[in-house]
């Protein structure tokens, strides 16, 4: 009981809770910003109404979501100091820099241009207004990059030296921190996974409307855009995941061995599909696996040697002194599987959807989809899905919108839990990183308050999203179609209500 409420445990729970919660909004923000920007670009170029309606619809959902992403992000920056002050003292010289870069370069961008985009519909010329959402999108990507560079340094510290006199790590090569392969691989993987989230979100909501035969032109476009996003990003997520995995096998073998519940090193190591193990004895009692695949994942070779948990633990004991260097194995094992499983499931559904809704010319004239028709879901030439099966597909598509979110969350749980007991791998242990001066009561208070507030906000946010999802794309007004193209101030009709106001 005492251990369960130790400040370290509580601080970890708080960090985990606030981070996973924050990261529900981040990938959706990154991808919806770009997708909305893409739709608005299509509108500016073609002047087609459906693109403008789509922009306004997805833009609104994006705004509801980014609001939560922004406010939960503030907590992240300050809790390093609050709960992890010894960590901050030890690595601030290195870790603080990308964080400061993020604020100065990315946050200012995002938050300033989002204001311009929201309120600028009737104040800015069309193209400048369009540029604003693209700048927001660039800001979100840059922000992800700096944060992932910081996080990658915790996974694989480079470009530093230990200053014994000051008892801290000091930066020696910032460029190396920003461009090391861990950072690039993590960035690529996180970014592609973010687009998987946004694509599935779009597909699910479009499916919901199409199943009810509502807002068809806008939702058809959205469905296709979403499906293409899911398939492309799904593919790239798998490729980048494989890349990241190979990097991890070299840099954090313990994490990957734990992900596979591979207790003892093997040549031609198997990929485990299911395992039930006994952590105290250090072996699995039940296991289903495919031989050789793990070796291939680690090394592109079906026969190469992969070290196991027990081997690595022993090696680390020799290197760092006595102790248990194993992370929580069941968590690592299952989070890795949930990440891959949910990610692949949404990717599979994307391919299926793209195939079912493939181009109109595959259909005979009689079956072609008109402008106001729900797309036929066509299995083969001349052979549409029966209404019941079609309905099943829409329902599955709707629920799949949550899959990549779940996959993303497990991905972070895996990558952070798999690094334990280290906070900076091989350099600083998590237990040495907590704030020594902060009491158990303080951490407990903040953990409870944050969790409660986040829970309330989740209910509010989901309800709002549902309301706007159900309402569908807005009808357009004359002002929307012919927005004034002047900046700010004086207008012939100076007392006209603002196009957007809180």
């Amino acid at each position: 009981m005492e251990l369960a409420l130790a400040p370290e445990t509580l601080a970890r729970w708080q960090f985990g809770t606030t981070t996973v919660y924050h990261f529900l909004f981040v990938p959706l923000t990154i991808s919806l910003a770009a997708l909305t920007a893409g739709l608005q670009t299509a509108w500016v170029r073609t002047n087609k109404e459906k693109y403008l309606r789509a922009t306004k619809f997805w833009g609104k959902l994006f705004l509801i979501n980014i609001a939560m992403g922004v406010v939960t992000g503030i907590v992240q920056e300050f809790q390093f100091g609050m709960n992890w002050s010894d960590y901050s003292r030890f690595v601030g010289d290195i870790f603080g820099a990308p964080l400061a870069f993020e604020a100065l370069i990315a946050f200012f961008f995002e938050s300033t241009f989002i204001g311009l985009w929201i309120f600028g519909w009737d104040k800015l010329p069309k193209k400048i207004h369009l540029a604003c959402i693209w700048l927001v999108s660039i800001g979100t990507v840059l922000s992800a990059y700096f944060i992932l560079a910081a996080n990658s340094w915790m996974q694989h510290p480079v470009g530093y030296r230990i200053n014994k006199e000051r008892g801290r790590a000091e930066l020696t090569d910032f460029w190396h921190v920003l461009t090391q392969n861990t950072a690039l691989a993590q960035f690529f993987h996180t970014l592609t996974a973010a687009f998987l989230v946004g694509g599935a979100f779009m597909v699910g909501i479009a499916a919901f409307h199409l199943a009810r035969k509502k807002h068809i032109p806008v939702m058809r476009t959205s469905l296709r855009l979403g499906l293409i996003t899911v398939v492309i990003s799904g593919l790239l997520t798998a490729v980048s995941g494989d890349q990241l995995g190979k990097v991890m096998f070299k840099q954090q073998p313990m994490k990957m061995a734990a992900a596979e519940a591979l207790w003892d090193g093997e040549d031609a190591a198997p990929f485990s599909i299911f395992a039930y193990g006994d952590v105290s004895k250090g072996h699995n009692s039940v296991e289903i696996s495919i031989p050789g695949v793990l070796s291939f994942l680690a090394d592109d070779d079906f026969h190469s040697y992969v070290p196991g948990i027990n081997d690595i633990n022993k090696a680390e004991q020799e290197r760092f002194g006595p102790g248990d260097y194993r992370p929580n194995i069941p968590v690592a094992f299952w989070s890795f599987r949930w990440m891959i499983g949910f990610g692949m499931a949404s990717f599979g559904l994307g391919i299926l959807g793209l195939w079912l809704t493939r181009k109109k010319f595959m259909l005979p004239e009689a079956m072609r989809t008109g402008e106001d028709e729900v797309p036929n879901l066509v299995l083969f030439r001349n052979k549409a899905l029966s209404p019941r099966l079609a309905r099943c597909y829409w329902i599955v598509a709707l629920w799949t919108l949550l899959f990549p979110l779940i996959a993303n969350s497990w991905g972070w749980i895996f990558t952070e839990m798999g690094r334990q007991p280290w906070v900076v791998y091989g350099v600083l242990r998590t237990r040495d990183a907590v704030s020594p001066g902060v009491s158990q009561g303080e951490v407990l208070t903040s953990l409870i308050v944050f969790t409660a507030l986040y829970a309330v906000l989740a209910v509010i946010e989901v309800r709002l999203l549902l309301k706007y999802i159900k309402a569908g794309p807005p009808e357009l007004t004359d002002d929307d179609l012919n927005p004034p193209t002047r900046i700010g101030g004086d207008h012939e009709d100076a007392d006209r209500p603002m196009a957007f106001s809180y």
Partner: protein
Amino acid sequence: MELHDVWFVLIAVLWTGYFFLEGFDFGIGVLTKLLARNRKERRVLINTIGPVWDGNEVWLLSAGGATFAAFPEWYATLFSGFYLPLLIILLCLIVRGVAFEYRAKRPEEKWQTNWENAIFWTSLIPAVLWGVAFGNIVRGVKIDADMEYVGNFWDLLNPYALLGGLVTFSLFTFHGAVFAGLKTVGDIRARARKLALKLGAVAAVVALAFLIWTQLDNGDGYSLIAMVIAAVALVGAIVMIAAGREGWSFALSGVTIAAAVAMLFLTLFPNVMPSSLNDAWSLTVTNASSSPYTLKIMTWCAGIATPVVLLYQGWTYWVFRKRIGTQHIADAH
């Protein structure tokens, strides 16, 4: 001037930017109860800061990030030491951001009233707490030889710091009232100017008391100059708002805030967080700072990014320069 001194100045600049900008939007939040008479007027006020409050808040994130990178020891001691007040500020900022974005998303009166109440309280509380925090930083807190804060929550609520809280609260509210005068038309503008006069008088009394106290405690010649500038600018801001020159008044209330922040940082230097237990245990620009290499990189980044940020944030204010009144707010929701 060494790089850690440069960063001491830059962090002061970031806090100045934060208090200047978020100062008036905290003020606007408080004025939704003090100035607005009905829902529509509250909406006018909220919309004067609608496009900019989010960008204003990033000044805080930059100040926090820059402190982490340039003075890790300061960051660690400050945020773990001021744990509960910081927690309250964070909670306020979370609710406040959501309140702005979600208030108009549903038409129900109860929904909107709740968020308006939230905006009032979550603007008021941080406006007070930032002053309390800075009061404590300047006065010094119980820091031991390991740079750890060893006081408790109640130690932070001393008279000097509480007076500091009143200063930021009254000054921000005055600054916000002047901003409201500058950005609105019609009846609400006239009332904003009248209210600003009263708020200015209150702010002048508490701010002078606090600044003189600070000067007597830790001041030197430079801080005295900053204090005089702050005092003169504040009086000027009040005179200007009385004369109906809102733009000048706003610029001068901004100068007041900048000079007051400058004074606090001048009295602090070369400490960043003095120890009230033992002078030798104080955190200074040298013992709390990062390595020269990190500071150099950060200097490059700030040197390039800051002018760009100022440029596009300035442009935002230009785009939304038009005054708004109740006629610009549609009747729906």
